[in-house]
């Protein structure tokens, strides 16, 4: 680790927090229907959408209505993408006449994009036309991100006042988030990325003759705009197979820093939005502090693990000064690779600028562990905030048990129904991750997909189901994931990880909204102080983390100690 490496990392984190503060307050304003500076330009489009869709933005929805609208929109969008991927050959903007996807791969890919996972069992530049990338994938990146943010807003509103019957209007939330938040930032960031070197063209490739006279076909496409929303919406699906490590997705240090900034911007901003909506900014700061603890610790571990280099290669005569460079790009070096891959797995983004499969055992484990915590520090856009709030409820419940009082969070009494719903949501993670990974590790056809032997093979499979269930989408990519078994089971893991978590959360929002808001008394446990921050960190580690420790000991930890003993596989 070097001083300049840490300076680079801390500069990015500082800029994120500085920008997230005003953006968070802006989100609270525009989703409430108040006018922002973009309204003169965009409000005619908003009104046009409502008129065509027959939507009254003032009409509030019950939690059932809100959840139904959300699931229905996602279901239709899933079907549309599935059809587009199957029929790619017949659709326009396909100059290389690429064939449609197989049914199982189209199912996996459509599920991946509707759930904001962006797991890629296909190779971007070799499988998808510019048309499919634009109206198929890019539109999903906006809508799945907006879906998550809308659900987080609905839950935040439930804490704001007592006796609420409705959570807001899903259609209005969705439209406003896309129009006033995601689209403007994606356009500005997209132009900045083009300036830094990311292509944005309808050409699919250029044919070059190299200096030594060989032919080189260089894949191109409308990359920059997709890159911007891919990061901003914590989606993570790359235009190219190598994702943000490809020189056209991450042409230099500036571009990868901008991308890391975009990934964290909205998840961090939403902590400020939450404080604004519930009328107590300190509540948002407490959540931000919890996030900060985990993120800084994870960066320190990953950076340290990668910077020391691979001892097995050092023993052969490789200079360890550059660190572990297998699967890393020279222009990013170790600090920006470690930063990016922590940011991408602390959120549910899953874009990568270095290959996690070649990370040192502890470096790769850091990413896996961050997803296993439940994608909540800070998690995906929206999904991270509602996940973190579920853990906050469990934390106050634990505190209540210790002192024997009915727990409260923001003046709402947390009772049996709320705790049951919170646990229902949280328990889906180990069930899907450990259950499906364990099953796959005894299925011969799934074992044939492993790219590495020994404990690292177990890590590959565990990572795949962790990533799919956490809706992250990054991979230990040595795993050949486009097989009937893995396409199907990983598709199911994505479905469970998104909706089996989200629907209990919506029910929780409905139940909390109706409750009266109790004014704080001398017996109230303050949820904005250091004590609460520490308690919440502990609950996240115990609830989210410890149940995965046995599996991690057999994978990355076993590999680490085998490596120190000089063993290879």
């Amino acid at each position, binding site marked *: 680790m070097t001083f300049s490496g840490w300076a680079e990392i801390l500069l990015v984190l500082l800029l994120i927090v500085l920008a997230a503060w005003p953006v968070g307050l802006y989100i609270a304003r525009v989703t409430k229907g108040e006018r922002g500076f973009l309204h003169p330009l965009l409000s005619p489009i908003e009104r046009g959408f409502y008129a065509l869709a027959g939507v009254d933005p003032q009409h509030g929805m019950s939690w059932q209505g809100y959840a139904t609208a959300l699931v229905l929109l996602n279901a239709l969008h899933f079907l549309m993408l599935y059809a587009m991927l199957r029929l790619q050959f017949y659709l326009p903007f396909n100059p290389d006449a690429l064939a449609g996807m197989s049914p199982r791969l189209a199912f996996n890919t459509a599920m991946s994009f509707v759930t904001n996972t962006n797991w890629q069992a296909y190779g971007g530049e070799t499988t998808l036309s510019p048309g499919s990338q634009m109206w198929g994938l890019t539109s999903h990146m906006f809508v799945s991100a907006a879906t998550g943010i809308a659900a987080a807003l609905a839950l935040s509103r439930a804490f704001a006042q007592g006796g609420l019957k409705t959570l807001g209007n899903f259609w209005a939330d969705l439209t406003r988030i896309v129009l006033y938040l995601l689209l403007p930032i994606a356009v500005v960031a997209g132009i900045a990325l083009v300036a830094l070197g990311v292509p944005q063209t309808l050409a699919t490739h250029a044919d070059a003759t190299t200096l030594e006279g060989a032919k080189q076909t260089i894949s191109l496409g409308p990359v920059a705009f997709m890159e911007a929303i891919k990061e901003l919406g914590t989606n993570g699906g790359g235009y190219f197979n190598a994702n943000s490590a490809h020189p056209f997705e991450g042409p230099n240090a500036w571009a990868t820093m901008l991308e890391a900034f975009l990934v964290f911007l909205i998840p961090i901003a939403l902590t400020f939005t939450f404080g604004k909506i519930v009328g107590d900014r300190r509540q948002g700061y407490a959540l931000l502090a919890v996030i900060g603890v985990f993120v800084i610790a994870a960066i320190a571990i990953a950076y340290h693990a990668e910077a020391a280099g691979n001892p097995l290669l050092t023993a052969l005569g490789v200079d360890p000064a550059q660190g572990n460079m297998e699967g890393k790009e020279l*222009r990013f070096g170790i600090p920006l690779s470690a930063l990016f891959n922590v940011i991408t797995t602390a959120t549910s983004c899953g874009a990568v600028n270095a290959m996690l499969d070649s990370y040192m055992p502890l470096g790769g484990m850091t990413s896996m562990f961050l997803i296993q915590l439940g994608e909540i520090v800070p998690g995906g856009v929206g999904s991270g905030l509602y996940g973190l709030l579920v853990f906050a409820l469990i934390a106050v419940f634990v505190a209540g048990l210790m002192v024997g009082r009915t727990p409260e969070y923001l003046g709402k009494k947390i009772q049996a129904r709320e705790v049951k719903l919170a646990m229902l949501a949280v328990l889906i993670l180990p069930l899907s991750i450990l259950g499906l990974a364990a099953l796959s590790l005894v299925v011969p056809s799934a074992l044939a997909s492993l790219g590495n032997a020994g404990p690292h093979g177990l890590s590959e499979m565990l990572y795949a189901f962790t990533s799919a269930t956490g809706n992250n989408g990054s991979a230990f990519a040595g795993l050949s994931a486009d097989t009937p078994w893995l396409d199907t089971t990983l598709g199911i893991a994505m479905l469970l990880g998104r909706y089996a978590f989200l629907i209990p959360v919506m029910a929780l929002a409905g139940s909390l909204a109706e409750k009266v808001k109790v004014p704080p008394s001398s017996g109230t446990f303050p949820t904005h102080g250091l004590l609460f921050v520490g308690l919440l960190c502990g609950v996240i580690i115990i609830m989210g983390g410890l149940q995965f420790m046995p599996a991690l000991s057999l994978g990355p930890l076993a590999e680490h100690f085998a490596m120190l003993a000089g063993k290879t596989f």
Partner: protein
Amino acid sequence: MIHEFRPALVLVALLTILTGLVAPLAMTGIASVAFPFQAGGSLIEDHGKIVGSALIGQNFTGPGYFHPRPSATTEPDPKDASKTIPVPYAADNSNASNLAPTAKALIDRVKGDLASAGPAPVPADAVTTSASGLDPDISPENAERQIARVAGARHWPEDRIKALVAVYTAEPFLGFIGEPRVNVLALNRALDRMQGQMQGQVQGR
């Protein structure tokens, strides 16, 4: 639920058109006017022919050129499409080795490359594959170790090549943003250009 079908259908259609068609096409238009070079892939032309992209690495094997990092990219085997063969720097199929740090295959590959890499310690980038397989850069230390070979093959004094490497070495901005690196294609083009000028001078005399 029935009355929510209309907003769901209409909004899926409208949002797809807006974010999947209008916005990316508008962006393509803006990019092609404002930043035509970058938007088109930073393609470099010599005498009207595309020789590569400034951002994408290409393979060099001749002794008179600086060599890039090893690359793990592949192409389908022309004899059997279900298999792949190694084709370094295949810029239409970005790929990494995805080998674990404890993989025997990694250790064996590095051992093989070290045999021809000169005295230890060897800079890590000279024997490791990048994440994309298309890394355009090498480290200054890696370039330094190749100077003698390039000078020998071109019959130039080493100092001259050393000076050229220094010109094409990019240092971190403000000393901490980015990594020190040498773009291999840019450096090799400069070598060829200089060779052309020298031959021109010889013929002109």
